[in-house]
């Protein structure tokens, strides 16, 4: 790998941090809207800078980070998606005390996620994970309800356990093999060492990252957090961190650790996590009545699909990046629509059944919901299809057709709850003269226009990525998301 300067590797993050600074200043003057625009503009700027950097081949900078090629693209997607979600949260943040500060925090989460995706050093990874988590706790808590306080606390405590496991793994690797935590030196230092300590460190770090992802059985914080957080915050926290952490996990393990451990251990650890997360996520999802809690469980299943990739090794990195980019965008749409529904139906109890007739009374939100749900299922014509196509395709080409079969069958079961959302939104409350929305005069509401607008923008992206490959193939994806 070539070398580039540190400043150029971290340029996207630096640009985005300027936005954070702007947001904090604007917030200090009580200008919440300006703070939101500042944070979003900084993120968008960072996304553009990262996007420009994708043309370079992947290069290590000063042992701390990689930039260029697929790493920059993931970074650009993380920042860009966050910019859309933050601007989509304008309505919520304007009406919330310290909304400007929350916008800055959201941007910090995104910047940390981008750094996770680009880190090539265990310390960079640890610090970014912590920055992301701290922002996450605050965003979950910002709903200021009893439930959200409790969920944030649970999230925090479990996150702290994960961090301690991570530090333990880090200590083993650092103490035994090297004077540096950078992957480059780690790999050089580990050459010729015996396997058991590496394996122990691998398991510790894998578990720590599984906590961060909310994979079964390290998931118990996730349903509470995503259910009780403000939906706009969940829109940011559900998908983006998963994308960043899985990319980091793939990079760390396939480059620095896997060569020194028994490959069957990696296969079984991740294969078992994947199957268990899929099974727990889909059946847990079926049992939910709350819309956002269902989405949280479904997120556990989605992590399960993603963890098929590390079981397969380096070639699956592009596939899992597509899968999680599609997931992050679709999950953002799904949560933003929850925010929108809350604004137009203040009496909504948060249940799936409570979405009755939303598709008919709010066609744009309904359309976004249709595309998001089908994308999460993995139906063709949406981005979600190509993610599953590539990941499960990599699985069968590596000979693990049964892993792919479990994955697609889990997707079938997942229609039980994703379809239930569409069933509520379109099939219920549709009898003319029935107890639909028309039986009482609608209370005065202010529709959350930014949320539905952002959701529609992301919906178009999901459809674009879903349909375009039919005509232009998938080569461009392989070019964009090359991690070599």
């Amino acid at each position, binding site marked *: 790998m070539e070398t580039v300067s540190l400043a150029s590797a971290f340029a996207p993050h630096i640009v985005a941090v300027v936005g954070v600074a702007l947001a904090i200043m604007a917030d200090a003057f009580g200008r919440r809207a300006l703070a939101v625009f500042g944070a979003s503009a900084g993120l968008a700027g960072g996304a553009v800078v990262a996007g420009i950097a994708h043309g370079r081949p992947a290069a290590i900078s000063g042992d701390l980070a990689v930039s260029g090629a697929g790493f920059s693209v993931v970074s650009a997607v993380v920042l860009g998606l966050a910019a859309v979600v933050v601007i989509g949260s304008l309505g919520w943040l304007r009406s919330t005390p310290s909304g400007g500060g929350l916008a800055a925090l959201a941007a910090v989460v995104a910047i940390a996620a981008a750094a996770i995706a680009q880190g090539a050093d265990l310390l960079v990874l640890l610090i970014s994970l912590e920055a992301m988590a701290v922002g996450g706790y605050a965003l979950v808590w910002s709903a200021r309800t009893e439930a959200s306080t409790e969920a944030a606390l649970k999230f925090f405590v479990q996150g702290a356990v994960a961090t301690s496991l991570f530090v333990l793994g880090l200590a083993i690797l650092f103490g035994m093999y090297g004077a540096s935590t950078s992957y480059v030196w780690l790999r050089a230092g580990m050459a010729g060492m015996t396997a058991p300590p590496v394996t122990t460190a691998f398991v510790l770090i894998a578990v720590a990252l599984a906590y961060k992802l909310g994979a079964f059985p390290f998931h118990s914080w996730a349903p509470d957090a995503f259910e009780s957080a403000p939906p706009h915050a969940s829109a940011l926290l559900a998908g983006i961190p998963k994308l960043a952490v899985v990319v980091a996990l793939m990079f760390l393990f396939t480059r620095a650790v896997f060569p020194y451990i028994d490959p069957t251990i990696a296969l079984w650890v991740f294969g078992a996590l994947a199957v268990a997360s899929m099974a727990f996520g889909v059946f847990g999802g079926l049992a939910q009545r709350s819309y956002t809690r269902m989405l949280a469980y479904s997120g556990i299943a989605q992590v399960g699909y993603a963890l098929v990739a590390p079981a397969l090794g380096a070639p699956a990195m592009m596939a899992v990046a597509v899968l999680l980019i599609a997931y992050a965008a679709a999950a953002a749409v799904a949560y933003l629509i929850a925010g929108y529904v809350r604004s137009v139906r203040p009496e909504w109890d948060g249940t799936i059944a409570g979405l009755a007739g939303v598709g008919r009374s709010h066609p744009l939100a309904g359309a976004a919901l249709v595309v998001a749900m089908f994308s999460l299922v993995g*139906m063709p*014509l949406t981005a979600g299809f190509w993610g599953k196509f590539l990941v499960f395709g990599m699985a*069968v080409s590596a000979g693990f*057709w049964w892993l792919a079969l479990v994955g697609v069958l889990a997707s079938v079961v997942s229609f039980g709850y994703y*379809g239930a959302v569409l069933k509520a939104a379109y099939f219920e409350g549709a009898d003319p003269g029935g107890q639909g929305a028309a039986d009482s005069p609608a209370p005065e509401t202010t529709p959350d226009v930014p949320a539905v607008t952002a959701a529609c923008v992301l919906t178009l992206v999901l459809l674009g990525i879903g349909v375009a490959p039919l005509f232009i193939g998938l080569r461009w994806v392989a070019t964009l998301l090359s991690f070599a």
Partner: protein
Amino acid sequence: MLAVDLLVAVPLLGVAAVIALGRGSATRPRAIALAFSVAFTAVFASLASAGVLTGTAVDGIRLAREAFPFWTLRIDGLSAPLLALTAVLGPVAVLASWGVREKAAAHHALLLGLQASIAGVFLAADVILLYVFWEAVLIPMYFLIGVWGHEDRRHAAMKFFIYTFAGSAFMLVGILTAVFQTGHTGLAEVLDSAFVLGQPTLVFWLIAAGMLVKIPAVPVHTWLADAHVEAPTAGSILLAGVLLKMGGYGLLRLALPIAPEVFEAARPILAVLGGVGIFYGAALALAQTDLKRLVALSSVSHMGFVLLGISAGTERGFAAAMLVMVSHGLVAPLLFLLVGQLYDRTHTRDIERFSGMGATLPRWATLFTFAALASLGLPGLSGFPGEFLAVVAGFGAWSYSIVPVMAGLVLAAAYNLRAVKGTLHGEIAEEWAEISDISAGDLVPAVVLAACIVALGVWPMFVLDMTGDALALIAALAGGM
């Protein structure tokens, strides 16, 4: 040729037109939808000059191959009859839903979207594109059943989606294995290099699972009755007319050629599934009191002949399967159309409550009798040549062990005649004494279908001319004559 791509593009343009121009109007969407579905028929007819009706293969526009697009369309002898069927049923479905006024724009947009996806299934010359269209079919159907269906529509829509999606899930793993092991996605290339497949048995059965659910073969047929009964008339017409045909088409198009030696070993299983379907479907139909459910379950019986024909493994058997598919694609929609018209007038489907309709609804009764006779396989109508040929081919392959199938034929006569007797004969039921016979507008789609049924019954070579060369190739692969 551009016309091949237009078969998918025209209905999609129709979707856009209906949404853009028809919103908020109860009557404009149906006119626009009719125009576009007739345009589809016209485009298909224009392909006749390229020799499509005699089995010539015609390719769609080729996009730059370096970019590896999945979009490659091709019409050949195997797909032409089913596209012809789609071309007939498109306008019929629009006419059948002429009375839909609630959310009419969405309804007709979904109908056209369904037509585009089905045409795409039959046209796709790339396995990934085939899978994309295969799944895309589910989306409009799901909403058609769920929003415009009858009382139990929500449950039926979910059941329809989950059953067929589960079938496609197996199929997806099979397709992924084929694609990633051969390194190709084009149908011809995949089939050419299918010999590299490591586990052909697995691939065959994974793919066949998706097809068998769609047909539907007996243990997995239960989605069909619910979906048919609850679907609006246009949905039932397309479901019975062309959606079920995707299964038979897929077996011949993909499952068989990808692993002919596995198919050879699987023939007895397919024959048993077919035989059981013929008998069990007919027996179930005989036991129904719901007229629409009766018609729906008769589909299981008829589609059993498709499996029986395919299981023969010969060109004659495949020809029988194609003939049965086209014939059933005309007869079942006619029956659903008529049952739908009756329901519109009586708001019940209970056979016990009908009586003496022959006197109150003479026009309807004539057509219904005709359709029932076509369904029981009266010679001279379209049902006969296909089912006769299937039995002949089945006898050639399985000898006397197909005799129980004959019981299915007898049952077909029984349930059809029982439906006719139960609804048309007897005393005039007082509650229906005042209802009006079907109008001239209702007659148009029914007469179109009836004419096609007679034409195909008299001249089955119309289909066999199209399929001849394509089926000979497949039969050669399967090792039959």
